[in-house]
């Protein structure tokens, strides 16, 4: 399946629902009045875009329709798409592999961090980048075994310690090992942590300090990626804010876009935080990760023109 198809099929249900809603509305009203805009707003909200984004998008349509007097379907859809693209910000992950790059995979519980770490490692290893994984989730049962299984699949070494060991010491070991072996990409899988738990947030801070300190001598570049589950509702915005407060986030990874979820929350988070979308998780398999493509994403959120 091509990447486009993956995005499409992942969000196909959404598209179907949106298209149906849109057609129904367009058919019953014919013209663009307030009821139409309300309905459109609801469709966006139902995709988890949040009230704020939905209102902003519908306001913009209202404004333009008023100014330009155009009310046809294609025009409205085109406008909506442009406005959504203006919100979404993407950034490819193309670091300078002259140096060691350290990627922290962060997020709340169960979003898909370990899986994403595994897929990422596989993808870069395959591109010939010397890659390493570090199992810094020392809390959850079998988190280490899970990452080791991914390491095996990806053909990438996994640095680990035992359950309940200090995650910062795993980071330390991994940094030493990465430096010694000339690794260019070190991916650190961290434990799921709810952002409202200060002890877990400061544990994260500590891991970062260690990585920064140990990486200094070799000019290592640290990247912080927050993994968001596409099924998540408005709490994702709070998650992004809270994680960004403790550690500056360099990018967002939206997982499970292949599922029931519409992933409209990506709009809300990027609108709120201006953090770029970097990757999309599109399944549980090793190849199911792709650079985030805003155009495809928006296309699959909107009804067919």
């Amino acid at each position: 399946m091509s990447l486009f198809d993956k995005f499409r099929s992942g969000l196909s249900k959404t598209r179907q629902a949106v298209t149906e809603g849109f057609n129904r509305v367009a058919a019953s009203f014919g013209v663009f009045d307030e009821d139409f805009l309300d309905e459109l707003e609801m469709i966006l909200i139902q995709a988890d875009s949040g009230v704020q984004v939905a209102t902003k998008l519908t306001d913009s349509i209202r404004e333009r329709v008023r100014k330009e007097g155009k009310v046809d379907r294609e025009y409205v859809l085109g406008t909506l798409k442009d406005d959504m693209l203006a919100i979404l910000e993407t950034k490819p992950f193309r670091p300078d592999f002259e140096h060691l790059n350290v990627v922290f995979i962060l997020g709340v519980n169960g979003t898909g961090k370990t899986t994403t770490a595994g897929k990422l490692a596989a993808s870069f290893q395959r591109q010939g980048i010397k890659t390493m994984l570090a199992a810094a989730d020392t809390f959850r049962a079998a988190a280490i075994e899970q990452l080791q299984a991914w390491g095996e699949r990806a053909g990438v070494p996994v640095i680990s310690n035992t359950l309940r060991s200090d995650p910062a010491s795993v980071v330390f070991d991994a940094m030493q090992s990465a430096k010694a072996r000339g690794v260019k990409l070190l991916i650190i899988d961290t434990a799921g942590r709810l952002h409202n738990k200060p002890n877990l947030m400061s544990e994260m801070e500590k891991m970062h300090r260690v990585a920064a300190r140990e990486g200094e001598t070799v000019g290592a570049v640290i990247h912080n990626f927050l993994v968001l589950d596409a099924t998540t509702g408005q709490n994702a915005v709070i998650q992004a804010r809270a994680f960004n407060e403790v550690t500056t986030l360099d990018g967002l990874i939206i997982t499970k876009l292949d599922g029931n979820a519409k992933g409209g929350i990506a709009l809300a988070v990027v609108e709120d935080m201006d953090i770029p979308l970097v990757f999309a998780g599109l399944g549980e398999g090793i190849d199911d990760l792709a650079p985030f493509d805003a155009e495809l994403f928006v296309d699959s959120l909107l009804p067919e023109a």
Partner: protein
Amino acid sequence: MAVFQGLSEKLQAITDRMRGKSRITESDLKEMMREIRLALLEADVHYQVVKDLTKEISEKSAGTEVMQSITPGQQIVKIVHDSLTEILGGSESKLAVSPKGFTVYMLYGLQGAGKTTTAAKLANYLKDQGKKPILTSVDVHRPAAADQLNILAKSIDVPCYINKEEKRAEVIAKEAMDRGRYLLADTLIVDTAGRMTIDEEMMTELKAIASAVKPDEKLLIVDAMIGQEAVNIALEFDREIGLDGFIMTKLDGDARGGAALSIRRITGKPIKLVGMGEKIDQLEVFHPERMASRILGMGDVLTLVEKASRQIDEEKAQKTLERLQKNRFTLQDMLEQLEQVRDMGSIQDMVSMLPGAGGKLKDAEVDEKEFDRLAAIIRSMTIRERENHKILNASRRRRIAAGSGTSIQDVNKLIRQYEQTQKIMKQFSGFGKKGGKRGLFSQFGL
């Protein structure tokens, strides 16, 4: 303090603006309904449910009693709160027990929802009630899924059946039944792989598992952070394999959890238990009225108070409660709390239940390691100082610092923290103040 600005304050603000007017107009009511709608949508309640609810609430609120009251904002909050509680509560939510003596619970849900953790918690919960549970993982898809359950089972000393050679989930499930009977267990808990309802193959697998073990309870595990899609997911699972109830996880986070309301209303199935943390004993019964408060952004204040009173002795809890209601929270109270929290272990868990308190807590730096130092500072104060911090001038602060072996800065910091805490406490007790003498707790029937 925006984080504490729940629906009640917003509605009160609207009514405050109307002061002087003899009665609420249609448009005032409309504005209030808009706020309610917004609050519910922000809490991830499904939009259709929001639509229906605001209509119902609007009808109920249109009654003259509300309109003529001097605090219509509060009255409407009460109507909303009651409506939500009613929807969330209702039918019996106990777990079914098979009359045949061998009960099977099957847990299913989306990827990462918390099924495996909840399976182990449930086993622990049943074991505490004197039952003999056995666990099994039929997740043949995710790496180390069976190991995960096995490790958790070992930690609570409950048998766990796994078969890593077998790739057919329903076969493992059947084997686990046999093993359970052989071990004279009375309850089998089946942990399944995470799946999306649009994945036909996986849904077929789930049906096969269900027909192999004929569960007495088919429980959908739902992440409290889930968005609008929750309703479709619940309906799909219900349609495909049947659904007896829900367990909502990760309620120790700060998600408002509006999905609870949507799925309860749309499927008519009860929420049976809730996950309150990653640890194995953090499974609790579901409280509809607390969930209602939480969805409305009033914080999980009741859980907080109950949690505290479970560990703090009753009398002191009562005293704190009274003081909260009277809007008095002295340094002496703070000291007592510090001392109690010292053995309680997780003030963080407690305070984090307040909406938006994560950030607040960080600001306040309530660090468990610091407790002893904080307590020492208060102990170096006179009783009068403890009762009224306003008299703490520079020379008193110097004396206290010397007496507790800390610095002036430490003392200043403590006082700042105290003032912050006091402010938070005021927010608790302040709610409902305008509605007469009734404090937050009495409002909720406490």
